[in-house]
């Protein structure tokens, strides 16, 4: 017996040692992401100081020190200004937003008719939501309802004037209502118009191409305010005397034309990205121009440029604020108009009103951009090689 011959075979796996404390867990994460190099540490400390300085101020102003209810400006004034708040107080005057909220939403739309706006909004959301959810059924019917039927329903509901609904002139519209109507019409008009312009720009017919190029480049080269200016000052001169356009309609035309030029460029990008083989394939199948474009090229091109289209929508949504320059009252316009209300004149009113408008615009734009990223990821799968 030779004891030393005995071998020892380990039959079970040794447990993995936990990684060194400095390489895993919270500490490691902090080391790696915040204090990797001396410069990093310096930056982190600096940033942390900035955040520590700003964040309490923002939170304090907007939430902890804010005034939420009140009937007039005294609610948001300090003692030395004639109110009851302590001297040196600084906080948001949400009471102002609260008091003006229905104006911010509807403008001067008659109070007893506002149910029409709300109903339109409900239909809008009911049609839009399933359209945005990729798995929801009946896409085609839904799209037809949303893009072709809804405009008429909305027009009837909002404007009225026949079948028992009293007429509401557009001069009374305002607030978020105007912002949304302008954007919706801009989107519904600019998409098809943009497609036509993009096709025209890539057309083999020289005159059509030239006209499209001139239109697109001229509109893209000037600010929207000049387009709106033209729509509101020149359009009346272009038509015969006695024929007038509603001011709102003129702004709509301006916004839609402007957006369609940008849309055309986005779609052109998509058209250019489609390989030539697709066009040739369609030709060899004997498809006509419109069949080729409608069945083969456009569906692929549009899918490619969905993020671009959504970005154009976001841009247009933000641009609707410019109608306040031609004295129409969109959300920003009506907020701004109310800032000069003597009943609410306090040092905090302007900031509160503008921040409120910013939050509303931000929610819409951020929502759209997130959705565009989501769609991009969803649609991307098929193209990855």
């Amino acid at each position, binding site marked *: 017996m030779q004891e030393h011959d005995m071998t020892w075979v380990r039959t079970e796996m040794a447990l993995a040692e936990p990684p060194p404390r400095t390489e895993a867990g919270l500490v490691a994460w902090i080391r790696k992401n915040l204090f990797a190099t001396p410069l990093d540490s310096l930056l982190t400390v600096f940033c942390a100081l900035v955040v520590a300085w700003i964040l309490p101020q923002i939170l304090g102003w907007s939430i902890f020190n804010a005034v939420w209810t009140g009937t007039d400006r005294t609610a948001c004034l300090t003692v030395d200004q004639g109110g009851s708040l302590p001297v040196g107080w600084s906080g948001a005057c949400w009471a102002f937003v609260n008091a003006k909220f229905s104006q911010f939403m509807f403008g001067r739309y*008659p109070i007893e008719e506002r149910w029409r706006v709300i109903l339109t909004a409900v239909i809008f959301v009911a049609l839009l939501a399933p359209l945005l959810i990729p798995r929801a059924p009946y896409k085609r019917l839904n799209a037809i309802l949303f893009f072709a039927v809804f405009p008429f329903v909305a027009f009837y509901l909002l404007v009225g004037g026949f079948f028992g609904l009293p007429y509401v002139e557009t001069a009374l519209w305002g607030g978020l209502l105007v912002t949304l109507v302008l954007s919706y019409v801009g989107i519904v008009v600019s998409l098809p118009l943009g497609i036509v312009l993009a096709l025209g720009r890539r057309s083999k017919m020289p005159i059509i191409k030239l006209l499209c190029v001139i239109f697109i480049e001229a509109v893209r080269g000037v600010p929207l305010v000049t387009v709106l200016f033209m729509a509101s*000052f020149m359009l*009346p001169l272009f038509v*015969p005397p*006695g*024929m*007038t356009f509603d001011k709102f309609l003129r702004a709509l035309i301006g916004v839609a034309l402007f957006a369609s030029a940008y849309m055309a460029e986005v779609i052109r990008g998509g058209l250019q990205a489609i390989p030539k083989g697709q066009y040739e394939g369609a030709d060899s199948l004997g498809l006509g121009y*419109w069949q080729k474009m409608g069945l083969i090229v456009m569906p692929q091109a549009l899918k490619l440029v969905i993020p671009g289209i959504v970005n154009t929508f976001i841009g247009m949504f933000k641009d609707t604020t410019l109608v306040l320059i031609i*004295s129409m009252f969109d959300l920003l316009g009506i907020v701004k108009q109310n800032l*000069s209300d003597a009943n609410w004149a306090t040092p905090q009113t302007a900031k509160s009103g503008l921040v409120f408008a910013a939050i509303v615009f931000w929610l819409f734009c951020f929502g759209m951009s997130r959705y565009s990223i989501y769609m991009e990821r969803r649609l991307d799968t098929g193209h990855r090689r």
Partner: protein
Amino acid sequence: MKHIITGILGAAALGFAASAASADTLDDIKAKGFVQCGVNAAGLAGFSAPDDKGEWTGLDVDFCRAVAAAVFGDGTKVRFTPLTAKDRFTALQSGEVDILSRNTTWTINRDTALGLNFAGITYYDGQGFMINAAKLPGVNSALQLSGASVCVQSGTTTELNLADYFKANNLEYSPVVFEKQEEADAAYEAGRCDAYTTDQSGLYSIRLKLASPADHVVLPEIISKEPLGPSVRQGDDKWFDIVKWTYYALLNAEEFGITQANVEEMKNSPNPEIKRILGTEADTKIGTDLGLTNEWVANIVKATGNYGEIFERNVGTGSPLKISRGLNALWTKGGLQYGPPIR
């Protein structure tokens, strides 16, 4: 493609059809059933401003109601288009509005180059300055404003007068020019400017909207003539006459003591002047010759009252603005308001 072209052709055809519409403003107005009136978009209390319920009120607004009453016998058949200083003339020229009644100064340039016809002067005004006396104690004349920043609305006669006044008096200033009145108001309130200049009536009205009106004083200097009145497009004398004589009717009604309250009993008045004005004279053709009914003045007064009543209600001593009649008193009381005879 063909469908598109057909569509375009159809649209073009429609456009041409619309161009055949008549150029007679009165017929157009009667056909559409209301008078379209351009008022101040910024809301100038006392002249044209929406009240809490969104109803337009003010002197300029009441004038439009008077015109509507003259045409339709009903002062409510009027719609208002809020206009800025910038888009007001285009709106009138293009036919978007039938009357521009928006504290607009009558100048020769506007009569000629801009193609307007002023129907009269509903308010004799002059440009002045307002300062915050609480912040600038000791300033009590516009001549002390050398070096000041002055808030003013762009594209108005006010802006030009301001430049002329400071130049003529060798004073320096820094203009802070805004496109819209409410922007100028806000900037003045925020302390961006030392002084605010516009028509004096406007200053009183704007002062009401400030957070602490008592701090602000209107300086005594009047640096310009600002005859404010309603205007119409050139080229339609018939409509021009109606608007012009609506204004004179308001003045005549005041002169002869016809008020909203007593207009019905006045119809039985034996005074031949009053009978002519109210259209109760036998075989009178005064109203019908204008293209209206013979009760047109009675209708106007019933709808809005006479000029004095409109003035008192909107800007006079009974209103928050508390402006005295001054130049706007009737000629019989030492003012300038003089209505040619209705006969």
